[in-house]
């Protein structure tokens, strides 16, 4: 438990200063993105959703038993996409499982 707590603290420290790769994908400029607008998928994701479905997104962007966005520097799915609106559930709300509905291929 102590080991895990230390690691958690280290990660929290890292994350508080890190820049997440997705934001710098260059597919949207600050001028064009208004608040609340979901980012389209970048070009290098072409076909990923149609081939893999939502699991193909969660694998990098979601926090659950299988995923770890920090390993690949991926944009983390916002908290309101999670079950009961809580990251701690580590489970995406079923209503948000159609990622491509809001994040089409850009």
């Amino acid at each position, binding site marked *: 438990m102590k080991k895990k707590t230390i690691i958690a603290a280290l990660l*929290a420290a890292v994350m508080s200063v890190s820049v997440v790769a997705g934001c710098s994908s260059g597919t949207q400029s600050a001028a064009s993105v208004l608040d609340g*607008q979901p980012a389209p998928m970048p070009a290098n994701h072409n076909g990923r959703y149609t081939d893999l479905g939502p699991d193909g997104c969660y694998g990098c962007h979601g926090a659950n038993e299988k995923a770890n966005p920090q390993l690949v520097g991926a944009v983390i799915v916002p908290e309101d996409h999670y079950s009961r609106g809580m990251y*701690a559930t580590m489970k995406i709300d079923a209503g948000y499982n159609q990622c491509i*509905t809001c994040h089409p291929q850009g």
Partner: protein
Amino acid sequence: MEISRRAFVKTTAVALASAAAAGTMSALVGCSAPSGSGTGQTTVAGATRTVGVCRFCGCGCGVIVESKDGKIVAVTGDPDNQSNRGLNCVKGYYLASVLYGEDRLTEPLIRDDKSTKGTDGGLRKATWDEALELVSSKLKETWKKDKSRLAFWGSGQQPIVEGYCTAKFWKAGLLSNNIDPNARLCMASAVVGFMNIFQTDEPAGSYTDIDETDTFVTWGANMAEAHPMLYSRLTARKINGTGVKHYDLTTLKTRTSASADKVLMFKPGSDLAIANAIANYLVQNNLYDQAFVTDHLQFKQGTENIGNAFEDGYDASDVGKSVDAVQSISFEEYAARLAPYTLEYAEQISGVPAADIKELAEVFADKSRKVLSLWTMGVNQHNRGTWMNHCIYNIHLLTGRYAKPGDGAFSLTGQPTACGTAREVGTFSHRLPADLLVAQEPHRRYTEAIWNLPEGYLDAIQKPGMHTVKIFREMSKGNIDFLWTAHNNWAVSMPNLTRFLGRGDKKGINDTFIVVSEVYPTLSTQYADVVLPAAMWVEREGQFGNAERRTAVFEKAVDPPGNAKWDLWMLMEIAARTLDGEKIGSKGAFEALFGDWYDTETHDFKGDQREVSRNIWEEYRTFSNPDLNEKAALINKEAKLKMENKQLAPYDAYIDDHGLTWPVREVDGKWLATKWRFCDGKQEDGFDEIGIQQYGKQDLAGGVSFYKSGNARPSVVFRPYEPPAEMPSAEYPFVFCTGRLLEHWHTGSMSRRIAELDRALPEALLDMNPEDCAELGLKDGDMVRLSSRYGECEIKVSTAGRTSPPHGLVFAPFFAEEALINLVVQDVYCPLSKEPDYKKTCVAIEKL
């Protein structure tokens, strides 16, 4: 420090939770952090928050609009709107951008030289006064000379009070029924089906059915692309539920097919045979609900072998005049008519294995499951669209699966307010508000009572006017002198554009005086004589009514740009000028119709937009609250109209409650919505308790009472399989299906001006089967000529699989003006509903 990956992942989750608690999570979340959505808080500091409804599809998602310094700065899902509960789709999230395209129309435009029609030049700026005088003088001239030569083409995107006033002006002011909406192109088959079967329009259930059902059956419906929020709810139900199944009946695989447990891919038009085979299986094997049949249903058959409306004279022909006729038959006679539709016969017609049809039939028979059918254009835009609506309802009625939570037949609506406006206020050539019909004498009397017109005044409009295809066919022949269109883009969306745009031998469009109310330049404005710049979406207050009968208000959030004006203001000005000097009874005509709301001296409304909308709404809701008008109440009682069937609440309730599904009933001072019409149960739980108490009967089979239907018995009408209007031939070997894709709304006039959506889907492609491509020597990206007996267009081929057509079928979306696929599409329509068949034009494909 060694640590397994599993432990690392778990640890990360702990860290994430910690970071969230520490407030550092926002640095990690996506660029577009919708931290406000779902919580009701603004995402932008200092912004003003207003309640709205998405501008786009029939889902009718509620949105929260944030504006600051006169501009919209954020749009998020409204968690308090029960239609979507905060969910949205990409188009909804990008709504803020839709107002700010660079080429927004801000000044009236006039075309002086008709020879410039069809080009992107020829329009000059004008003042409002000049434009309005020109429009009203042309309208009045045509009206006085021959009112059969004028027409209004409206829309299922026109807000409710605007549509209501347009209908009132056209029908009571001009005494003309030449008013029809573009909803004729999307929902007419559903409407005629509803009226034939139930004598009332619109679904009995609600979106809550999606959360409650065990089985989804999608009939020719690509919900993932065309009703994305609802599709998210469908897949959520599959994930959250146990043993929830989805059967997808389709002519080509789509994104919707991905969630299906079984895809039944059928030959175009053969859905009729499949549905009849299911009904036959249920009847022959005694798997139908006998008590439901006994308590609720009557059986009929109708005119058959009705051909197709290739010729302009079809409607007036002997067969065209007989298409609505039905005769009562017994259940046994109905069973006998079904008997030829064996599973094997249906397989032969459709190509769907008999075993799969049987499996689906058994699902309908399985009393342990609830079944929800969903459909839109695949069924409605069909040369037998009304019949196909009948056939789906037949199955549901035989099995008692209608109007009950999770068990229903849900006709989805394409546009945001085809229900709320076109259908409910009556901007159709044959209708009056609230399901009333021009042809019915008590309906005219009732309308006269509410509109305070002399008795008998509306007898002048007892004959229905021209439906949409007829308007455009007549225009092409030079028989329409004045056409005003609003909230649509007919030059891209109408079928058979080769004819209607004068690119064939019929050039009537060049002589018609065309007025287009618009927000952006479109192909339609290239044919306009006058362009009137309109306020867009939340640049004015408006109201939409969505697919689940939810009426909702979108508040005004910002001002329109330049000299763009509220459509209602334009209508008032044109009505006032046109009706100048005219009388209704002893009163000035304009004063009689609109004087309570508009001041012709000041050229302005009597009150702000909220007050005016409220006042107009109060008159409109009298139709469904007859007790508000003594005369109307008497007619309602004597003629047994049961107008409370569509009861509406006072205006402000729709703002306070973020939308309400009608009928809305007043209980102890509160207005309670109804989720399931005709289904008995507590009103506060969403059942139709008050309606059934007033007009229905309790303790019938299924706990439902169809009190609005004739003799309280919906009609099961036998409709046979009849083939599509044309079948593939050596000359035109492919079937061409058209439709929508997620990123773009309809003709793209709004969504293509949003950079992200345009980038996501920059062009319309022709989806083809890879083997068909190989046979034609085509590869992905090749340009081809697509041609039919109607016209031709050029388009790029795709085998990328956005849709996966089978051999012999191709698909393209209609959002791209440069492809203009509707040059190729037939204008043949369902003889009953007059809705064109956009799904089955036979084409040839040639490499360029």
